[in-house]
């Protein structure tokens, strides 16, 4: 059974801090890994990673994949209160089904 585990479950930081969110996976025939941000509504797409070692970057957010060790990290630098959300990691398997992790709840305090 495919499995995606995110850590930590929740995190409280202050504005300006840097955070690292973790996602490990066990998936049959891995194809790609996705990160989403979920505020009080629908998850919004952040990144899709397919290859190891290639960093994807968007502003203060960046992510990298390690297919050998079966994990990915999402970094957020200079955090702002608007970064407060649940961050979801999901993995595509060979059947093109997305399996989601339980999410990391990030709270950024002023």
């Amino acid at each position: 059974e495919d499995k995606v585990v995110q850590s930590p479950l929740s995190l409280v930081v202050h504005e300006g801090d840097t955070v690292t969110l973790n996602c490990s996976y066990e998936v049959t025939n891995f194809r790609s890994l996705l990160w989403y941000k979920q505020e009080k509504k629908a998850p919004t797409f952040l990144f899709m990673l397919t290859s190891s070692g290639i960093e994807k970057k968007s502003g203060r957010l960046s992510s990298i994949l390690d297919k050998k060790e079966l994990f990915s990290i999402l970094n957020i630098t200079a955090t702002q209160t608007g970064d407060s959300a649940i961050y979801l990691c999901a993995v595509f398997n060979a059947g093109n089904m997305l399996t989601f992790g339980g999410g990391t709840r990030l709270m950024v305090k002023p």
Partner: protein
Amino acid sequence: DAGITQSPRHKVTETGTPVTLRCHQTENHRYMYWYRQDPGHGLRLIHYSYGVKDTDKGEVSDGYSVSRSKTEDFLLTLESATSSQTSVYFCAISWGWSNEQFFGPGTRLTVL
């Protein structure tokens, strides 16, 4: 937003009643999905569609059926709602099988 709407946005119903949730897209994406999101379980796939009248089961399909008679609409039906189906339901769409999925605003369903 990716041109996806869901209706209704909130619904309260009683055990045993039929419920239909609608997902409508204006993006002409071929693939559509229904997920449910519950505390402790994350997002889980219920059913998906890979074209008009082409649907298949996901991880948690028991008690649910779907239909897709037009590219833009994907309906999720609970034939006889149970309290265990109280959840937030999200529709998603994608261009291709392994492309990123874009999510609708969600429907909060409460079954009493």
